[in-house]
């Protein structure tokens, strides 16, 4: 399963490592742990914490696990899913839902998949392989980096860095990217508490990217001189929150802007956000019908575009698609195809967009250009501001209705891992029909 990560605690690479160790340790003992147990087992078995008195370690783990009502450790379970180290055997039961017709969807069948309270985790082979590697070695870093480069949401992060670099240079003659610009453009844009997830995840993604050598930072200061070995040495010395307090990874904490060189690029096939995450979880709780409508539309678009990988298609063809039309006629609600496509881009897909023979690397870029046309290049400056709302989305929303999409063409530049996706998607005749070309 692939989730949106949304908390800064997931930056701690040592805690990710210990969590994988805990998962494997428990599975070897034929225990399928929940998020709490895998974290506790990992912290106890993994050698990173061996110098801590057992009583203190026990307290640290317990305290960490209780922080923010358990959200910290939930985030680590989500990391293991996002990086495909395990299966959520509870969440995968959703694939047992047999949908023969669209009216077979019943709200009660899906409420248990909104949260992870019943989730238990089964390690996959890659988790076992990862546990053979020593912490903060080259092999360990490469292994983790390769996982990250197939995690759709992280790929989106790299895409946005690349986009901002070009746009800042083009309009502002600057080579630097501001962290605030990144958080304002990253998405997803449907959070109930605006400025939450995309804001907080910056800490995680910049830590992963820098410390694993996926990006180089040219700040003009010390960070510019960090070799990969320096970064791994730094990781060895800083083994995470539970032993070190809130100042860990302090070298990155004050980073506000930098020239960024992307050294490792996303793979062509990514793990896409799972079915239940195609819509804001609050949406499933409070506006089930509307959430289901959005999820099914996006599901169809996802498969439609996957079949058209690296093929140029008119967005108008999507409107003509019988399967999408049947979903729309069932729910009869208003929607924006551009909004759906942008949401899928936030999950890691990328649609080259062609308008009047002008090519844009992604739909996000195309929309950004449209906004700049209306608001001027100062919009890129606006993106640097710390906002509690998503100014990109607010500026884009009125344009979604104005842009003539009929002749707009897009070309999917990435595929998604269908097997992984289908493990956490309802199945049945109707879903098979939706997923077919």
């Amino acid at each position, binding site marked *: 399963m692939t989730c949106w990560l949304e908390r800064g605690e997931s930056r701690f690479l040592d805690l990710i490592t210990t969590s994988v160790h805990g998962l494997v340790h428990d599975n070897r003992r034929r225990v399928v742990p929940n998020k709490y147990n895998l974290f506790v087992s990992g912290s106890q078995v993994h050698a990173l914490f061996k110098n801590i008195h*057992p009583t203190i370690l026990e307290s640290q783990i317990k305290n960490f696990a209780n922080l923010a009502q358990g959200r910290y450790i939930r985030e680590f379970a989500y990391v293991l899913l996002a990086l495909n180290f395990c299966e959520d055997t509870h969440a995968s039961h959703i694939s047992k839902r047999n949908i023969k017709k669209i009216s077979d969807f019943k709200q009660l069948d899906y409420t248990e998949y909104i949260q992870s309270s019943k989730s238990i985790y089964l390690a996959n082979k890659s988790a076992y392989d990862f546990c053979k590697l020593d912490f903060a070695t080259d092999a360990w870093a490469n292994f983790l980096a390769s996982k990250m480069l197939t995690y759709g949401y992280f790929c989106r992060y790299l895409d946005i860095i690349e986009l901002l670099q070009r746009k800042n240079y083009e309009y502002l003659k600057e080579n630097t990217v501001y962290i605030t610009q990144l958080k304002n453009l990253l998405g997803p844009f449907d959070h109930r508490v605006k400025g939450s997830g995309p804001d907080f995840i910056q800490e995680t993604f910049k830590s992963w990217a820098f410390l694993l050598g996926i990006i180089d930072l040219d700040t003009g200061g010390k960070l510019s001189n960090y070799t990969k070995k320096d970064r791994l040495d730094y990781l060895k010395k800083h083994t995470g929150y539970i032993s070190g307090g809130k100042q860990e990874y302090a070298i990155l904490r004050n980073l506000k802007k930098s020239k960024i060189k992307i050294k490792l690029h996303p793979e062509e096939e990514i793990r896409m956000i799972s079915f239940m995450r195609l819509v804001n979880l609050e949406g499933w709780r409070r506006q089930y019908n509307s959430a289901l409508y959005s999820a099914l539309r996006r599901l169809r678009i996802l498969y439609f575009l996957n079949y058209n990988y690296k093929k140029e298609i008119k967005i108008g063809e999507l409107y003509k698609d019988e399967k999408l039309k049947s979903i729309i006629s069932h729910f009869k609600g208003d929607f924006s195809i551009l909004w759906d496509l942008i949401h899928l881009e936030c999950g890691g897909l990328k649609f080259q967009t062609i308008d009047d023979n002008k090519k844009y690397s992604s739909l996000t870029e195309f929309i950004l250009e449209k906004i700049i046309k209306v608001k001027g290049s100062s919009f890129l400056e606006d993106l640097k501001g710390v906002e509690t709302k998503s100014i990109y989305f607010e500026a884009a929303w009125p344009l979604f209705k104005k842009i003539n999409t009929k002749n707009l063409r897009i070309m999917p530049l990435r595929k998604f891992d269908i097997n992984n996706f289908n493990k956490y998607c309802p199945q049945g005749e109707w879903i098979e029909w939706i997923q077919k070309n």
Partner: protein
Amino acid sequence: MDTKELIINVESLTGKNRSKSSRTTFLCLGILDMTKDDQNKSAIKLDDNGWKIDKYRCSKCYLCKLKSKYIALDKDNFPYVTDREVNEKYEISFEDQIHFESCLADYDEKSGISKWIYSIFRLFDINETYTECAISKEYIPKEILKKLGRFRADGIYGKSSIPDVEGKINEFVFVFENKKFSTANDNWIIDAVKQIILYASSEIYQKRKNNITFIFCYNGSYNIRGRVVKIIKENPELKILYEVFDKKPNYSFSLIPSSEFFNLIKDSIKNNKKDKQKIIDLILSKKENFPLK
């Protein structure tokens, strides 16, 4: 000595449903967790050789002495760890109290005075005691939130009002708002009174039949009644306090400086005895009549 001897489990009530959560930490004030930072700040140390107390970090809160039979006091009344049970009685001096009060003034409220009050309650066996007891704003009348400037239209994500400590024993409920004393301004008093109004008007306490005492506790030794009266006069919105309490015969209000609780500890160490009735007596003896004069 057990490896958990000088550790305390700090329990709080979180979220709308006030579900219990807890953290373990050394007894020392000034810390709330067990991170490296906290271990450095704490006077209590634990390593492979067992327990130690670093007197240069010690605030003389004497929580360790209250909890463990293996703590003795040296000639300067600093605690140290022994390997035998200690039955000696000690006389805590005025100098010890000054040392403690100056340290208490230095800690932030959460890890200082609130942790101290919570720990005293727990160590005196008032087991239904919690710190940081959330009250969702949904439980507080909107008009009171508005009058006190605490209303937010998108209120469901507004921060809860959080009594610092809540302890229940027999028919009594004690609800604490703890503040650091200041001569620089009156904001801490205004804030404390507002908080107590919010707590007292919330459904959480309005529905209870127990005798509920709301305690404004602050570090220091003086009674600040006169100052509170003056501030309520100058800030008319604070008069809601009287209206809320008038309607509830089971409510009372106490003003207690930290020195009063320190006296309880002194007494306990002197007599080698912890008597929870003395806590109840202290709080009830400090009840104020409304309107304050």
